[in-house]
C-alpha cells in the first residue's frame, strides 16, 4: 500500500514533520500563556487562543503534507534502507 521508497526520497530529511512538531509545540506555548494570563476565549477580535489554534492547524497540515513514509524511512536503521544502485 505504501510506495516503495526510492534513494531520492530517502535522501530528503523529514523537514515537514519537524516543522509540524515545532508548530504544535508553539501552539502549546501560546495556549499555556493564554491560560496563565487568563485571556478570554471568546473576546472580540483575535485572541491568543485563536493564535494557538491556528498554529495547531498549521502544525497538523504540515504533518499531513509531510508524508509519514519519509519519517518512517528516516528512523529505519541504516542497513535496512535501500541502497542506491551503482551507476556503470
Amino acid at each position, binding site marked *: *500500500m*505504501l*510506495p516503495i521508497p526510492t534513494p531520492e526520497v530517502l535522501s530528503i530529511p523529514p523537514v515537514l*514533520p519537524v516543522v*509540524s*512538531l515545532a508548530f*504544535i509545540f508553539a*501552539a502549546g506555548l501560546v*495556549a499555556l500563556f493564554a491560560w496563565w494570563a487568563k485571556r478570554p*476565549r*471568546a473576546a472580540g477580535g483575535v485572541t491568543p*487562543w*485563536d493564535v*494557538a*489554534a*491556528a498554529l*495547531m*492547524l498549521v*502544525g*497538523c*497540515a*504540515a*504533518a*499531513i*503534507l*509531510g508524508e*509519514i*513514509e519519509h*519519517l*518512517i524511512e528516516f*528512523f529505519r536503521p541504516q542497513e535496512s534502507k535501500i541502497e542506491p544502485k551503482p551507476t556503470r
Partner: protein
Amino acid sequence: MNDIINEILKALTTPDGLAALFQVIMIDLVLAGDNAIVIGLAAASLPPQQRSRAILIGIIAATVMRIAFAIFTIELLEIAGLMLAGGVLLLWVCWKMWRELRNPSHSAEGDIGAAAAKGKTLAQAAWQIVVADISMSLDNVLAVAGAAREHPAALIFGLGLSIVMMGVAATFIARLLERHRWIAYVGLVIILYVAGDMVYRGFVEVRPILKI
C-alpha cells in the same frame, strides 16, 4: 500491569527503547493531525455541549480503528482496492462538509423544529467523523503496524499520546472554526488533499488488476 510498567521502564532506560519511543511519539503525533482536523471540522458547527461529545466519539472511533487495523494489517493488505474505497469515502465526507459550509442554515429553513434550527445534529457529525476515521486509519495502517513492533510499551505510550493530541487539537480547531468560519475552507482543502492522495494511490494499486 507490572509487566507493562517494567516494559515502560526498560524503554526509558535503554538506548534502543528510547529510540523506539521517540520514533513512535513522532509518528503518532504526525498521524493524529488529519484525524484532529476532520474531527474539528465536523464538530465546529455543533453547539458547545454537543461538541465535546462529538470530539470524544471521534477520538474513540479513531483509536478503535487504529488498533483493529493494526491487528489485521496482513489481511487488509490482501484486499485490493481498499485504499481507493477509503479515498472515495473521504471524498464523500468532504462533499458533505462543503455543502454544510456553503449552506450553514440549510436545515434551519425547514419546519423540523428547534433542534434542526441549530444546523447539523450530533448524529450527523458523529457519522461524518466515523467514516473519515475509517478512511484515514486505513491510510495509516502500515505506519502504525510497522513502527516499533518490537516495543509494545512504546506503541501503547504512542497511542495514548496521540489520543491526547487528537482531543486537544480537535477542540482547539473546532473553537477556531466556530469563531472564524472561513478557516474551515482551509481545513476542508487539507482533508481534500488526503482524499485525493488516497484515491490516486488506490487507483495506481488497482490499475494492474483492472488492466486499465
